[in-house]
């Protein structure tokens, strides 16, 4: 008896972001290993299809095989609030979303600032999904004293971060960047200047003004990004292995600043979230159009009965159509190397309340691929960009080895029907919490199977 997969997957739309190949192919798997990949039109054509964006054409199969997805930013709340999520439910949700690998943020309760707690963040039944730990950058995430990074890395930490909050003190931030560099891992920073954003409920702009919500200024992100880059520029002169990753960027200005710094050669990367590429702050007023369906000046501002849904309260906040477009542009040109879900489960007790009093964050690990595919179907993102942002991009940041869909590799893939659709609900979502504004919304892309290292971790 074995739970290793043996099957023939004939004539799928295969997108191998590792080998940079795309096209119609048949994949044979025996005992969990890929024994053959046959590109119908040959490898040269597959290389050309990848370079052209990996988009299937009319008449191509609609069921796709992609390398199993990697999330560089999720919260499974263990130890801590298991009314919201825990490792078992989070892993189940991840597998349903097509993820084989998930990196967990350390803002647990208590924070993962020591080896024992770090181990607790990934302990438990996990349905085969590979969990990676990100350790706290400072003790108690208090921003005063850098953690024992070497010990945490020895215990398996793939990065350090105080996510949930920025590291405010510039000296401590610098020390954390140096400690991460010495340990060979990146520092992941949540970019927010709290003196500008305190009390903010929604992105500064017309929607917040019309809805009377306290503004969270774009400058609050930009100021933090500029400051982080200034420190990085100084640190790399003495520590050339330093790496800084800015997570969940949301504004055009911050992304332009990152793009310029990357152009100047700084070891800087960033990610954007699925909700910031697909939703706008207009959703708070009850608009339910995708970000790319809203022309500037065409916002629907009068609140509908669905307005003020606290499942739209996130940090950083949802913004206007221009900022969402900038997030997608950053994925297209590589400024952002990944889509990170910022999967943030919250129980009803923390979320079902007045908009401005609700906890920040929404679940996203089961819907991120669908949101990226919605952007793809609208012509906003090529399938190559979607898949890279969910596989090779985060793998590069976290140092995850990926074999792709090559012959001889352990089978790690997601099988997804690109043409089918589904609706998130308490019945369809696997995670413990369902704090998402997408409940009931028809979403493209139905995951049929997620397989990690030869073992199915989700089967629809």
């Amino acid at each position, binding site marked *: 008896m074995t739970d290793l997969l043996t099957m023939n997957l004939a004539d799928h739309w295969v997108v191998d972001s590792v080998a940079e190949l795309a096209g119609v192919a048949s994949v044979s798997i025996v005992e969990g290993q890929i024994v053959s990949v046959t590109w119908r039109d040959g490898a040269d054509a597959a290389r050309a299809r990848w370079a052209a964006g990996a988009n299937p054409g009319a008449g191509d199969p609609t069921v796709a095989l992609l390398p199993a997805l990697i999330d560089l930013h999720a919260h499974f709340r263990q130890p801590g609030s298991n009314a919201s999520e825990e490792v078992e439910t989070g892993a189940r949700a991840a597998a349903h979303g097509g993820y084989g690998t998930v990196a967990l943020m350390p803002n647990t309760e208590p924070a993962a600032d020591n080896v024992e707690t770090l181990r607790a963040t990934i302990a438990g039944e996990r349905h085969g999904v590979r969990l990676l730990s990100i350790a706290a950058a400072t003790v108690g995430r208090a921003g005063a004293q850098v953690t024992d990074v070497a010990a945490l890395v020895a215990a398996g930490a793939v990065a350090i971060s105080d996510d949930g909050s920025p590291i405010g003190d510039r000296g401590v931030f610098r020390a954390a960047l140096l400690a991460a560099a010495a340990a060979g891992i990146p520092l992941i920073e949540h970019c927010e200047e709290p003196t500008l954003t305190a009390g903010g409920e929604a992105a500064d702009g017309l929607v917040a003004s019309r*809805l009377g919500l306290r503004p969270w200024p774009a400058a609050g992100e930009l100021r933090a990004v500029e400051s982080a880059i200034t420190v990085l520029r100084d640190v790399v002169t003495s520590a050339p292995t330093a790496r800084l990753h800015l997570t969940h960027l949301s504004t055009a200005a911050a992304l332009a600043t990152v793009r310029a710094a990357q152009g100047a050669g700084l070891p800087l990367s960033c990610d954007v979230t699925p909700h910031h590429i697909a939703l706008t702050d207009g959703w708070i007023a009850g608009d339910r159009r995708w970000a790319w369906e809203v022309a500037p000046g065409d916002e629907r501002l009068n*609140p509908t009965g*669905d307005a003020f849904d606290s499942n739209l309260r996130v940090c950083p906040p949802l913004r206007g159509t221009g900022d969402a477009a900038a997030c997608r542009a950053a994925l297209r040109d590589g400024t952002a190397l990944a889509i990170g879900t910022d999967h943030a489960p919250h129980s009803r007790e923390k979320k*079902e309340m*007045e*908009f401005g009093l609700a906890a920040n964050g929404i679940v996203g690990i089961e819907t991120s691929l669908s949101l990226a595919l919605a952007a793809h179907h609208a012509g906003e993102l090529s399938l190559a960009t979607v898949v890279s942002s969910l596989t090779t991009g985060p793998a590069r940041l976290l140092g995850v080895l990926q074999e792709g869909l090559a012959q001889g590799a352990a089978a790690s893939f997601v099988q997804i029907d690109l043409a089918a659709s589904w609706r998130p609900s308490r019945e369809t979502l696997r995670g413990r919490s369902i704090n998402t504004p997408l409940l009931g919304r*028809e979403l493209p892309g139905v995951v049929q199977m997620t397989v990690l290292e030869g073992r199915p971790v989700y089967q629809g």
Partner: protein
Amino acid sequence: MVTHAAPTEERRRHLLDVAGLDWRSLQKLLASAGEMQQLLDSPAGGSDALRGVGVTTLFYEPSTRTRISFETAAAALGARVTTFNVATSSVGKGESLIDTVRTLEALRNQVIVLRHERAGAPWLAARHFGGSMVNAGDGWHAHPTQALLDLSVLSRRLGDSDGSLAGRRIAIVGDLLHSRVVRSNLHTLTAAGATVLLTGPASLTTGFAEHAASFRDTPGSAQLVGSIDEALSDADAVMALRIQRERLTPGELDSLEAYRAAWGLTESRLAALAPRALVLHPGPMNEGVEIDPDVADGPRSLVLEQVRAGVPMRMAVLAQVVSEARAHD
């Protein structure tokens, strides 16, 4: 997309907002308020249209005129009126808004009049309440019945034959940022065709240039102007907004004296710039700050008329939401 059953009808059961109400809907409310005034002036002093209907005022923020005005209005229609005292209730023990609303429903309340310090709270409450939710002010966001009663006063004083304010210039001066009154008045006044000129100190008007411009597709228009002189020039009416000391953060205002000098409605300023302008204030007033006592109590003041207009307008609102709820139950 989720398709909700008859969303428009469902929403009319509540009065959450004046956003989206067109001039015809507003006219209907104005006419209804006129009939309610006749009822109030009749020997009976009211009716029993809402007999047996439970109306509770649920106020999470202090209020005098709005709460009493709603309770007077509900009583004049024969409703069973309850004042929910937030300070002495289980809210102090951490009872949530949703639980409170459900409790009030279980106690057979058909209408809740909600005042809350957070924008959007009435929308949340309405989604968990089988009866009618009336927004009596949510944070900085909306104060629908204030805007409606202001419209009734202005329409009566300045409106043309059908009550419309086309061609009328209405200035609104002061703390726009924290004001639910200005946000709701922008909807009603522009729907009525008025030209609305907004002004105030830069720190308290952030975002309002774009906000005002977003009313471009209405019968009227709105614009943020940089000086009080420009706003008052040739105005038919001026509304002073209260300096909301409890909502200000440090640095938003230099001093009350400096504010009066730059933005206060003084008789000399009005005489020079807007000699025929009527003056409104949503109350409570900081006399000697945003409005001088001699203006507030003077012949151009509509302040008490605003307060008086509150009762018939709130009667009209209560009658409308209950009637809509009955029609769709």
